[in-house]
């Protein structure tokens, strides 16, 4: 489809034009993109593997070596290179966060669209499920779930359990958000028009509802990603991560367990902490800017944009001030 491709390119370039001007958005995108690049190219960024033990000339393991002794970030209690742990940890943290985030987004959008569009009994059922999940405190529930699933010895990788539990618990706010948006969209006249044409529910949802809420879904996905990464770090810090595949949260857990703080080994606990801040801050900045840009209420009107802007009279500010009555002053 030739014209579709042209259209896509036009929309993309329009989007980039506005996005380029937003500094916070660019910063957020930079933070997110760099962390993804680091995770992707981890093996090329370090000469060691995460399980290598760094030894001194005498063959003794270097434990808690400061960055001055072993560049760039020293070693941990077992003599592993912290930088290597950090870049490989990015893979685990981002993978768990992204996959959980996408699951949450998918479930949330599905619930929101179905509840909002069909209303009535469907809405009631889906929203009561949402409410129940919403009122249960997340952290204890997740701890219990992860711990019990582990105990059951189902031969599922611990990371899969983490992804599933986070993904299936963090969709509630999304579902509510999407539902409220769908509720307003389905009352709009173009949906009535589609029904009058004879379109079925599937067609209306795909062609009329989804395109309107897609921007919301995209922006919200980015925000949910940051939550998912944070939650993963929290759970891993509490010891629920996979010790054989350490994420940033697992690193913090190790650092805490093996008294890195009392040993003054700041290079052990600061880098993973800052990395978490780096990614989540990036996601939040990017997500907020996307939300602002893609909000259906804030999309461009046909009079906006550089080419179409109505030229202003040169001395408009002076003249109009006299012409338009300022409320409150005009009465005097």
């Amino acid at each position: 489809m030739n014209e579709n491709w042209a259209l896509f390119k036009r929309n993309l370039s329009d989007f980039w034009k506005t996005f380029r001007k937003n500094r916070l958005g660019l910063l957020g995108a930079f933070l997110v993109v760099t962390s993804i690049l680091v995770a992707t190219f981890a093996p090329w960024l370090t000469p060691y593997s995460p399980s290598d033990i760094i030894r001194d000339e005498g063959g003794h393991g270097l434990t808690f070596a400061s960055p001055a002794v072993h560049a760039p970030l020293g070693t941990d209690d077992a003599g592993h290179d912290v930088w290597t742990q950090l870049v490989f940890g990015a893979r685990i943290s981002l993978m768990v966060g992204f996959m959980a985030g996408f699951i949450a987004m998918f479930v949330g959008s599905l619930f929101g669209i179905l509840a909002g569009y069909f209303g009535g009994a469907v809405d009631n059922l889906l929203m009561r499920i949402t409410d129940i999940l919403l009122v249960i405190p997340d952290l204890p529930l997740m701890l219990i779930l992860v711990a019990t699933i582990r105990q059951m010895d189902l031969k599922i990788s611990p990371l899969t359990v983490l992804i599933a539990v986070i993904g299936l618990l963090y969709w509630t706010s999304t579902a509510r958000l999407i539902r409220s948006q769908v509720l307003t969209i389905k009352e709009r006249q173009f949906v009535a028009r589609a029904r009058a044409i004879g379109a079925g529910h599937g067609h209306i949802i795909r062609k009329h509802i989804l395109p309107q809420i897609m921007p919301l879904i995209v922006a919200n996905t980015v925000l949910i990603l940051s939550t998912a990464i944070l939650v993963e770090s929290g759970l891993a810090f509490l010891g629920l991560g996979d010790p054989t595949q350490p994420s940033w949260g697992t690193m913090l857990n190790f650092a805490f367990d093996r008294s890195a703080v009392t040993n003054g080994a700041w290079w052990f606990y600061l880098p993973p902490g800052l990395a978490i801040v780096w990614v989540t801050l990036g996601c939040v900045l990017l997500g907020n800017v996307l939300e602002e840009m893609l909000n259906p209420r804030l999309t461009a009107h046909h009079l906006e944009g550089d080419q179409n802007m109505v030229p202003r009279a040169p001395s408009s500010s002076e003249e109009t001030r006299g012409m338009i009555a300022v409320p409150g002053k005009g009465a005097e």
Partner: protein
Amino acid sequence: MTAPILEVRNLYKYFPIRQSLTDLLRRKPADYVKAVDGVSFTLERGEVLAVVGESGCGKTTIARTLIGLEEQTDGEILFHNETVGAHERRARAGLVPLESGGVGTREQQVLPRMSMKRLRQQAQMIFQDPYESLNPRATILEIVAEPLVVHGLARNRDERLARVKTALEEAGLRPAEDYFLRYPHELSGGQRQRVVIASAMVLQPELLIADEPVSMLDVSIRAEILNLLRDLRQKRGVSIVFITHDLSTVAYFADRIAVMYLGRIVETGPAREVLANPQHPYTRALISVIPVPNPRQRRERVILQGETPNPIDLPSGCRFHPRCPIATAECGKNDPPWHAISPTHQAACLRIEQGTS
């Protein structure tokens, strides 16, 4: 005479009002907004029928019921002598207005039925607000091609493009290719309404239901859109139910007029005859306030007092009597019967028979 394309018999549309829990417990009967309260009319092939009335009189509800966006509470809609699908479900729900004003159950007549999908291939609706009736994230091409896609017609891409192109050009958007990839927000109100009309005409329907198609447009563009509708009717022979509150546009292109007041038709007849010789006091009031482009001409204007009564709790007798300038005591008691002024022109008013008008 050929069979009418559309026949509406005793159409009722009541909207139930949600009751409070205390009312439910007290077993208070449910209240209904009587939006359409016994309306009958026919539409011949190629005819333009204007349904006129002030806001809240049930015009739009009629339009939405005709196209199946609402289910009628009672009454038949016959399209080519076949009833339209929605009433099947209604028979199950069993809601039918009663003499007392409430709602009860009744056996349904068995008439040949037409599926909603078939109806919607042959009848299309034009909505009031061209700023709202187009999906802001769809291109004009997608919008106009949508009816074809929904009904699985013109599956071939070239054929589809060709049909969209003809429809757009017939609607006065030339050259059509320039509009294919544009979004609704890039078009003016008049252009958007042309897109709406193109998308309604792409299936080449026999019936158009136009719900105030020009009321949201600038006055300068109204005539253009009305001319377009008139051309389409001449070229394609499409019948139009034209819903409006503006009698001056009616004079411009309707064949027949039905004047509505509070869910009922109060006067119906050929457009010229009704405008020249209005019989019902409500029609007279409406006609007397049409602006005339001559400031020196002095006319007697009938300005109606008060507001439209609440359609939940309708006045007894003639529903116009609380605001009627010539009402008598009898008007508050008896429902006025139809009174024929000529074979085609009828009005429902007690005072006509008494010779006061």
